[in-house]
Structure formats: C-alpha cells, structure tokens
C-alpha cells in the first residue's frame, strides 16, 4: 500500500460535519430566501434539512467513536483522551470525555431534538414548523461554527504518536459516562421551548395552540436535567472522595440555575393551560431558562471560572461563545419586547388566595433562588474585572442563603395543591391545613428533642417535609374516598382508578414525593454526617457514630490501566469490608483516590486512604446518614415525571382507537 495515501474514516466524519454546518445555515436562511424569491417551496428545506443535519452529525459522531475504538491516534482528540489500554466501554464514552468531543455531543443532541421536533411538527403544527426549525437551525449553525473552527474533534496529528495519553482518570466511572449526556439532553432540551417561543412571537402564534406542546418538551428536558444533576452528584460522591456530593462549584451552579428556572417554567406553563394567564411571563421564563443553559455552556467552556470541571480552552472560544450568547439573547429579548404584546393573558386573577397566585409565588421563589446562585457565581468575576478585588463565594455562603429558600419552597409545595383554582375557600383550606401542620410541628419537635442540640434547619426541614407529605397523602385520600362513595369500589380499585385517571396531577404529586425524599436525604447527610481523619496502623480500630471500623492493611493491585494501593477495612458491626484505593494511572503522574462505600438505606460508611508515614496510613472515615435517600428520591421524581407524561401516550392511543373504530 502506498504510504501517505489512505482513506481514513475520520475524514468522512469531518466532511459530514462540515456538510451539516452548511445545511444548517441553508435551513436558517431558507425562509428569507422563500420570501424574497417569492418561492414558498424553498421553505421545505428548513424542515427537511433537520433530518439531514441530524444524520450527518450522527455520521461525524460515529466516526469519532470509531477512531477511539480503532486507536486512531492520528486524531488529536483521540490521542489526548484515550490509549490502547483503555477499556472499550470508556473508549466509546471518551467521545464526551474532553472539551472538543463533549461540545460535539452537545451539537449532536441539539440536532437530534431538531429532527424530533421536525418529525412531530410536520403532523401537528405544519404551519409554524418552518419558523421553529429556522431558529433551531440557527442555534445548530452557531454551535457548529464553534466546534469546527475553534475546537474541532476531527483535527489530525502528524507525526502520529504511537500511544495516546489517557482519558482523565476521574472520568473513568460509569456515573461519569451517563452524567454528561443526561445533562446535555436537559440543557439542550430547553432549546425546543425557546424555538417555539421565538416562532410564536415572530408569527403571532396564539399561546393556546403551542403551550401544550412545549409543556411536554419542557418536562422531558427538565427530567433529563434532573437526572443529569443527580448522576453528577452521584459521581462526585462515589469518585471524588471528599465525602460529599454537592460543593456549590461554579459548574454545578451552572447546571442548577437552568434547573431552577426550568422548574418555575413547568409549573407556570400549567397555570397558562388551566387559567389562560401568565402568557408573557412564560415566554420570559422560556427565554431565561435557555439563556441560563447557554450561560452554563459559556462558563464551563470559556475558562473564565475556576472550577473542578472547567475545560482547558483557548481564549478565542470564550469570546466566540460570549458573542454568540449575547447575540442570541439580544435578538430573543428584542423580539420579546417588540412582539410580546400579542401574547396576552385572556383571563385575570380572581383572588389573591388561589392556586394560580400560589404558582406565581412558586415562580418568584425559584427565580430568586436562580438569581442568588447567579449572583454568587458571577459576582466574584465582575468584581475582579471591575475593581481588581478578589473575593470567594463558596459553600458556606450558598448553604446559608439557599437553605432558607429551599425551606420556603417546601412549604409552598405543600400549600399549592391544597388551594383551589380561581378563589380559595378559606374555611375548607383551614380544615385541610390544620392536621398536616400539626403533624409537621410534632415531627420537627420530636427530632429537636431526640437529637438536641442540632442546627435549627433540621427540625424546620423535617417539619416542612412531614407537612408536605401529609398534604399529599390527604389529597390522595380525599379523592379515593370520594370515588369510593360515588362508585362503590374497593379501596385498591378506587386508588388505582384515581391515580391513573389523572396522571398529570398525580405524576406531579409523585415528583413532589421524590423531592421530599431527596430533602430527607439532604437533611440527614448534610446535618448529621460525621467524619474523622486519622493515621492508622494495621489492626487499629476507629470508632465513629457507633460504627467500629478496623484497618486491616494494604496491598498493591493492578487494574486495566492503573496500579493502586488498596486498603482493606472491616466494619466490625456487620463484618462488611471496604477497599479504598489510591490509584496511579498509566501515563499520568497524578494520584487519584477512589473511596470505598458500604451502603445501607440508613447510612453510608465511606472511607478514603491516603499516604503512608512510618507504617501508618492516613484514613479518612465518614459516616453519612441517609445518602441513599437522595438517589432514591431522584428515581422517584423521574418515575413521577414519566407517569405524568404517559398521560399523553394514553390519550393518543385512545384517539387512534377512536379514529380506527369510526367507520
């Protein structure tokens, strides 16, 4: 074979990506061309292009994955993030293991959403799909520009290195494999409501006709974002070895802000559906949520923030992203101000004491929460830029400011579903609140009495959680009792009928229950954790929170691409063993601690092993109560969300049956 002349699949991917970029530009420009050339047929490009762009981007992604699998170190991105010893599983996941590839994944997901909306829209809203797709395509083109011109994953290397570096050792964990795609599916998912809102503003599309569609898209995005954040916390807990799961790191904040605004949005949308109000506010929320998604991307990828997650990136990228973000936002808010007047509420509040006004309070609390996180994240940057003074805003600040906000959120979460739409009947409301409130106060008091002295947040949080749980249960109970009375059904039948009969409402209640479970986990692990850092010789026993843990010694182990010093500890209470490791990965001098966790539902025993001095090893032992509640609550929330979404599938199936049965 002639040297130097060989076809390399990665170049096919590179070509496909460029082609996708140009098709996206054509998509975005086609509506203008159609108008000026007076040729309506051109608009088809905008819609059909979405599928083509998705296919081309997929080809690009597959060739990168192929380059990883075949150890094609002539590709810079592969050479930097993989080597021949990397397990296959991580080679595939290395697609999003670095800056270039993860940006490409972001775009891939964006094109996937576009294609899905195009497919869906052609049947359901054919008259508006062109504008929606044009906005989506402009976003795709903007991000492709960044990827292809400033941080292309297709860049080649010559001479070809015989061996690659390695995937960042911290990322070699299943949690990290799932976390980025989930998070991006969430971030990027909020581009869909954004494009809908833009199209609605530009084409004077009545809110009632599109808000139902974006409710579902927003719920999907919110679900992925929630799952992504939970997986991130999980990864942080099981891999980083600091005994915690959330550090108010700027990049964590960057994912939390869109989550907060997205949560406000999914609540606010249902007010619009039910009561035909808050139209402009919803559009504002949609734009803000997507803006915060963009801001998160900018913060992570521009290098302006010091963070555990920040990607090392060239300065040009930061400027590109900042410009792109500013242009998108100026256009979006400009259109909003110019044409928002058309999207006006059709009904007004009847009374300040109503479910819709409580939804407004929910929105305000979530907005304040997002604004506080934004301020805490960006203020140090602005301060340094403007005056040169440097300050830090770390976990102690966020804990102090956000915990009271979370507590207010919990209380509103309990009250909201109790209050009726339009105008609350105060007498009935009082009857519904008294018992849960009493239960809550009792639970909080009991906790304070049992675990005295304790921070004030623990009893208050437990009281709030109990209150909300009681309201949810009584809410279900009332509906079941009513149905039994009317239909004379048995208790289980009535329960199933009630819950599956209104999936949106009870799906929401399940999500709320999941949040409560998470709250219990946060209180337990945040306020009742204990830890000790000691030097231990083999045979020594450490006592922490009634757990007796014996250090048995260490040995050297070899993994697929690392060597490690592995400690062995025995929990004498149960006989379980722990194996924390201190790993050194091939081709990377950095030592990586890998904690070991023994989990039961009620508590985790979590241990790190450090350096050796004079025959003794540094052992960092944590006993973290109720951490599993956080993961469990996350699962319940996602299940509740799916349950709420299943409403639409059911309705569609029924509609299809109805169509088929009509002669």
């Amino acid at each position, binding site marked *: 074979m002639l040297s130097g002349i060989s076809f390399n699949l990665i170049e096919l991917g590179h070509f496909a990506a460029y082609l996708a970029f140009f098709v996206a530009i054509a998509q975005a420009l086609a509506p203008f061309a159609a108008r000026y050339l007076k040729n309506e047929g051109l608009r088809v490009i905008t819609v059909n292009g979405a599928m083509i762009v998705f296919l081309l981007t997929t080809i690009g992604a597959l060739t990168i994955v192929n380059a990883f699998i075949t150890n094609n170190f002539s590709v810079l991105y592969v050479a930097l993030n993989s080597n021949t010893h990397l397990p296959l599983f991580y080679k595939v996941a290395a697609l999003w293991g670095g800056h270039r590839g993860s940006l490409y994944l972001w775009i891939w997901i964006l094109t996937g959403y576009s294609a899905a909306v195009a497919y869906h829209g052609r049947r359901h809203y054919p008259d508006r799909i062109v504008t929606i797709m044009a906005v989506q395509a402009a976003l795709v083109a903007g991000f492709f520009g960044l990827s292809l011109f400033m941080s292309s994953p297709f860049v080649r290397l010559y001479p070809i290195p015989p061996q690659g570096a390695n995937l960042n050792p911290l990322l070699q964990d299943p949690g990290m494999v799932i976390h980025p795609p989930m998070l991006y599916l969430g971030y990027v998912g909020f581009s869909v409501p954004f494009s809908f809102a833009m199209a609605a503003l530009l084409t004077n599309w009545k809110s009632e*006709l599109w808000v139902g569609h974006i409710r579902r898209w927003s719920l999907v995005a919110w679900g992925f974002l929630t799952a992504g954040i939970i997986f991130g916390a999980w990864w942080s807990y099981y891999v980083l070895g600091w005994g915690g799961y959330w*550090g108010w790191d*700027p990049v964590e904040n960057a994912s939390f802000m869109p989550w907060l605004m997205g949560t406000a949005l999914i609540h606010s949308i249902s007010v619009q559906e039910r009561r035909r109000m808050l139209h402009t506010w919803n559009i504002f929320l949609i734009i803000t949520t997507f803006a915060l998604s963009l801001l998160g991307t900018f913060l992570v990828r521009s290098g302006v*923030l*010091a*963070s*555990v997650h*920040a990607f090392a990136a060239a300065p040009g990228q930061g400027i590109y992203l900042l410009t792109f973000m500013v242009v998108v936002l100026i256009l979006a808010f400009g259109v909003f101000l110019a044409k928002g007047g058309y999207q006006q509420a*059709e*009904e*007004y*509040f009847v009374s*300040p004491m109503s479910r819709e006004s409580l939804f*407004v*309070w929910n929105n*305000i*609390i979530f*907005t*304040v929460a997002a*604004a*506080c996180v934004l*301020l805490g994240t960006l*203020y140090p940057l602005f*301060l340094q830029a403007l*005056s040169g*003074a*440097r*300050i*830090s805003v*770390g*976990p*102690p*600040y966020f804990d*102090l*400011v956000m915990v009271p*906000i979370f507590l207010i959120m919990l209380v509103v979460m309990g009250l909201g579903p109790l209050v009726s739409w339009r105008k609350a009947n105060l007498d009935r409301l009082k009857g519904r609140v008294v018992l849960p409130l009493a239960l809550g106060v009792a639970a909080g008091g009991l906790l304070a009495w049992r675990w005295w002295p304790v921070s004030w947040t623990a009893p208050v949080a437990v009281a709030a959680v109990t209150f909300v749980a009681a309201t949810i249960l009584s809410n279900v109970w009332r509906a079941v009792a009513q149905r039994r009375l009317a239909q004379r059904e048995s208790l289980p039948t009535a329960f199933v009928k009630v819950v599956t009969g209104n999936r949106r409402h009870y799906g929401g209640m399940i999500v709320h229950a999941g949040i409560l479970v998470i709250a219990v986990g946060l209180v337990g692990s945040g306020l009742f954790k204990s830890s*000790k*850092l*000691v*030097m*231990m*010789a*083999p*045979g*020594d*026993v*450490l*006592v922490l929170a009634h757990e007796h843990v*014996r250090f*048995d*010694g260490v*040995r050297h*182990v*070899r993994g697929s691409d690392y060597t490690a010093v592995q400690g*062995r500890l025995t929990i004498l209470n149960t006989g379980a*063993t722990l194996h924390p490791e201190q790993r050194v990965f091939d081709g990377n001098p950095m*030592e990586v601690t890998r904690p070991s966790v023994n989990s039961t539902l009620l508590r985790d025993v979590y241990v790190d092993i450090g350096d050796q001095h004079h025959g003794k090893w540094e052992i960092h032992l944590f006993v973290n109560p109720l951490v599993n509640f956080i993961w469990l609550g996350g699962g319940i929330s996602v299940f509740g969300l799916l349950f709420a979404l299943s409403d639409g599938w059911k*309705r569609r199936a029924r*509609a299809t049956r109805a*169509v088929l049965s009509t002669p």
Partner: protein
Amino acid sequence: MEATGAGDACGVVDAMRRLIALWLLLTVSVAQAAVVHESALHRKERQIASTLRCTVCQAESLAVSQAGLARDMRKLITQKLKQGETPAQIRAYFVKRYGDYILLKPPFNPLGAILWIAPFLLFVGLGGVAFVVIRRRSRAPAPPPVPPLAPAEQARIDALTRSE
C-alpha cells in the same frame, strides 16, 4: 483475543485477591485491636481549613485539597493552634496574607455586602411586584375582550377537540 486474555488476567487477580484477603483476615484477627482517636487539634484544624480556600486549586477548600500548598497551609494552621491562637486569629492571619479571597464565606464589607443583601432585596422586590399585580388584577372589573380567533384557528381547535 484481547478480551479473553483480559478475562484470564481478571480471574488470576481475583484468585490472588481472595488468597490475600484470607491471609489478611488470619493475621489481623490474632493481633490485638487498638482503638485510635482523632486528636482535638486535628479536628479544629480541619474545621478552620474547611472555611478557607485553597489558593492554587480550582474552587476547593483547604480541607479537601490534595495540593502541596494546601498541605503546607494545613500544617501552618496546626502549628498556630499549638501556639494557642484562636480560630479567629488564624483566619485573620490568612486574610492579612491573601486578602478576602481566601475566605469561602464572603465578608460583610463594602465589597461583599451586596451578596448578603441581594437575596432579601430580590425577594422583596419581585414579591412586591407580584403582590401588587395580583391584587390589582384581581380587583379589575373584567378582563379585556378576547381577540376573536381566525376561522382557520377555530377549525383547528375544533379538529383537536374532536380527536380527544
């Protein structure tokens, strides 16, 4: 081919692992267990370190950081504690050397005050606006007339309602 090789290696490693575990269990169980305690000094040092930022790291506290400088600074804290300094004095020492930057909790001074005031201002501001709007709207006699739907839109709504 590679995969089966790796599998064999895993099997061998596993077997060795078990042997070593058994050996450890036997040797250690005869040794006398000694309960170790964390010194109060150490505990205090970690408490102080968790409120200070590691200056060379990416958003990590001194207590968590593995960096060499963080280790040295932790040693310095221990030293100062041994000399009888209070946590406040030690924090003040670090602030004098590194500025407010080292404090993870921003101070309530002209530079940091906005961070502490803003949450209240935001809440009062946004809440006030919402309160006024809701009250005024709920007292308004009647909503403005709804703009009539275009025939095409009406037809579409009818079609959608029928399909339900």
